[in-house]
């Protein structure tokens, strides 16, 4: 009995010490071997600040000390980490991806943020901060501290880089400034040159003709919305070889950027300046829109559908042509490149996906898809240059993967059902009204199932602007999506519509 008592006391003292010891930064770091976590923690405001206060690993990565959740989360993460340490190759873990919001939310506890940051309205808070924190308190169920404060615990160069698009010069821009736009006299590949900039891009002829829109009932991973299949006839058009790149988009941005927000909030894309029609373009974004992944020929991302449309108007005005976003049918025709299979290359989602039971164990065979598509397995959780992939049969790059692409059709789940069953529909443009637009092609986040040529998805306007603290929310930049972009098409013959 007395022994039992002493053992109990010892156990409590010892377990308290164990709890303390296993909560030290040194203990965490003895296993957490990912290269930069410690280094960028030292650079972050949670370590390096003028108050000299240091915030330790467990203060953010576990629920508040003393809560029951603290112990259960500690046990769970402890087991998981020990398992990973023993059985996983830490070199192969995509640490970069783990720093992005979705992953960060799983490893950080809002209660812990709040348990230290109890005053959301200190007197030194900026006006933007006041309005943002009011917005947070009024919309708490939708928001998390990390939505705005992702990099406070681990420093990120991107988050602190001053954005100055006037000086964001890329190598290609050292080249010649184009004097005029390309002249198109034949239905053949041409290189468009944007006057007044050094930016050029290739436009490929897409011959048009008849094809079957949608996927057959048996296709693995098929969604309801991909059917019923319909015959579609398309007029010839040109399509850009690559997704609109940062080089292209920044040329537009520099020339049309609206100062302040007054112009943009009117929501008009064309305004009169000195009697000349001028395009009013995006306001400056809040963060670095490239997410720190790099500019150049990587696809431009996070612009709104409205911004993409305005880009087309601007490009049309600059080049004297008729650039626009593709219709959904044009997009799928181009993506298929004459094929009727799930991909424009050989293979099935079952073979490429990392999600199937078999592939989880034995690993997916990725040899073919790897060379054509930037997707979840090879993207390093970010966009990549189109130079890293091979073209589809029409010569187009990144039709599948890298970023989702806007189409001009409004999204309706059963859109195809409204097209005639017996005869081919000519140049369909989708439903006449709606609120969200179709996006196609999957992205660097997508699994093989989502990368099929027939996969349909759509914009999520409110979700994609959820954490934009501005009122009204930006019409130019999405705050909560990083894998959407677009490519342009151009009519060869005047666009016919029936």
């Amino acid at each position, binding site marked *: 009995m007395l022994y039992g008592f002493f053992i109990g006391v010892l156990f409590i003292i010892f377990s308290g010490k164990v709890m303390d010891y296993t909560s030290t930064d040194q203990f965490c770091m003895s296993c957490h071997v990912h290269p930069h976590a410690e280094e960028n923690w030292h650079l972050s405001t949670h370590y390096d600040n003028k108050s000299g206060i240091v915030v330790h690993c467990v203060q953010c990565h576990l629920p508040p000390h003393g809560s029951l959740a603290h112990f259960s989360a500690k046990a769970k993460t402890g087991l998981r980490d020990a398992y990973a340490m023993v059985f996983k190759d830490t070199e192969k873990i995509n640490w970069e991806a783990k720093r992005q919001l979705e992953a960060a939310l799983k490893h950080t506890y809002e209660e812990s943020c709040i348990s230290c940051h109890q005053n*959301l*309205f200190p007197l030194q808070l900026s006006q933007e901060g*006041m309005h943002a*924190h*009011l917005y947070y308190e009024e919309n708490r169920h939708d928001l998390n501290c990390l939505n705005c404060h992702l990099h406070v615990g681990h420093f990120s160069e991107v988050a602190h880089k001053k954005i100055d698009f006037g000086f964001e010069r890329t190598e290609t821009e050292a080249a010649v400034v184009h004097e005029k736009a390309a002249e198109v006299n034949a239905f053949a590949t041409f290189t468009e040159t944007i006057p007044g900039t050094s930016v050029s891009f290739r436009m490929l002829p897409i011959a048009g003709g008849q094809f079957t829109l949608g996927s057959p009932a048996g296709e693995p991973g098929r969604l309801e919305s991909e059917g019923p299949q319909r015959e579609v006839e398309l007029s010839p058009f040109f399509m850009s070889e690559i997704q609109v790149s940062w080089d292209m988009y920044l040329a537009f941005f520099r020339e049309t950027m609206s100062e302040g927000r007054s112009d943009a909030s009117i929501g008009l894309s064309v305004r009169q300046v000195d009697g000349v029609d001028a395009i009013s373009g995006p306001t400056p974004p809040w963060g670095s829109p490239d997410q720190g992944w790099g500019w150049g020929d990587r696809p431009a991302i996070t612009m709104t559908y409205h911004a993409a449309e305005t880009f087309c108007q601007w490009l049309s005005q600059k080049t004297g042509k008729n650039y626009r976003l593709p219709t959904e049918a044009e997009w799928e025709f181009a993506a298929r490149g004459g094929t009727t299979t799930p991909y424009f290359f050989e293979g099935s989602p079952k073979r490429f996906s990392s999600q199937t039971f078999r592939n989880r164990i034995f690993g997916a065979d990725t040899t073919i898809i790897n060379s054509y598509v930037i997707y979840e397995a090879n993207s390093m959780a970010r966009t990549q240059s189109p130079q890293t992939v091979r073209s589809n049969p029409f010569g187009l790059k990144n039709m599948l993967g890298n970023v989702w692409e806007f189409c001009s059709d409004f999204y309706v789940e059963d859109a195809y059902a409204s097209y005639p069953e017996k005869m081919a529909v000519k140049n369909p443009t989708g439903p006449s009204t709606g609120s969200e637009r179709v996006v196609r092609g999957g992205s660097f986040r997508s699994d093989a199932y989502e990368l099929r040529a027939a996969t349909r998805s759509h914009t999520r306007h409110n979700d994609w602007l959820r954490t934009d603290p501005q009122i009204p929310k930006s019409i130019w930049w999405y705050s909560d999506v990083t894998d959407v972009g677009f490519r342009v098409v151009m009519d060869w013959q005047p666009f016919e519509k029936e």
Partner: protein
Amino acid sequence: MSLEQPNRRDFIKGIGTVAAASALGAGFLLKSCSTDKTRVLLPSFLDTAPDGRVLKAGLIGCGGRGTGAAINYLDAGPGLEITALGDVFQDRIDRCRTYLKDQKNVEVADQKCFVGFDAYQKVIESDVDIVILATPPFFRPSHFEAAVRARKHVFMEKPVAIDPVGARSVMASARMADAAGLKVVAGTQRRHQRDYLTAYEHIKSGVIGDIVAANCYWNQPQLWFVNRQPNWSDMEAMLRDWVNWTWLSGDHIVEQHVHNYDVISWFKGKHPVKAVGFGARHRRPTGDQYDFFSVDFEYDDSTHLHSMCRQIDNCANNVSEHIVGTKGTSNCHNLIRDHKGEQIWTYQYPLDENGNPSEQLMKNPFEQEMVNLVAAIRNNTPLNQAEECAMSTLVGIMGRISAYTGKEVTMEEMMNSSLRLGPETLEFGIVNIPATSPVPGA
């Protein structure tokens, strides 16, 4: 029984005691109720503020109400001083200064009198403890924020904003003031009237059941206007005529009617979620405002508040509130009836100096709110009315926008609206705002 924490059972037993205690001003009552948003703390009810260290106040906005508020402040208790004045007009400062000298023998030094659109900042920086904000409401959000950041306690007149952006700014500054332990009174003086407070306690105790409908009124003759003089700029003409310009006053549905909205929100414990209203202009000689509004508000429990306000001579006048409960009705301050029309409670006002019954409170509410502010500062008890007043202001703004546009307007839209009225820059010169009133359905 505990005066600090009256519960329902004690209350029914002790109605007389509470009424007597509060009428005598003996109890230091700190009562709280919760709305859907925040805990609202009701102020203490002393006849005079407790003594303590000297509190210096600066007055920003030296018009009639500002000067009156300064006098009320000086009357609130011992050790209270007015040491700085600020206004955009020299003549307003001169008149206020003379009045303070004549009435209270208070002299404000030359170097503590500031003129111009930045006068508020100079008053705030002039070594004061409290600022009294009594400019036209357009200026309130920026002045309030500046005062809070400088750690000043605040008395500010209602309404506290004229547009949704301003109202939200005040809410954020209010939370900042809370965090810094500052005391704020917001000029909705019905919250400082003993009759209202006593009626509130009764109704909270369930005497009329749940509140299922409400009406409120601010119908009065024409207010005032100032004709433009030939040497005045647009800005000067508008500022001197501010109660007739929406960008300065918020229109009378906000500027005056906010009192009644505030009472209904207080008693109901929540704010309406949408409004459909109408109104028009028939009589007003200057400015761009309407002469009357009629607005139907709806709450999230499907109950309604109907409100009307008017500023036209020779019409029926009425400034009051009326709430309907499942068991009775009340005017929210001195009368409760059952559904048969029988009086079940009346507020017992003190007798006047000749010993006759009166309807006057012992302490006028404009003085009472200053007493309560000073008491809260010196006793360090919680008191911050900024957010509740901002919400009541926003209710008025929602009604106004609905009447101006003819559309249904929701509180959610107000919480996300970017509407900001008034010129971009503040200077004496051209103000590009025409004297035409909005046309609904346009």
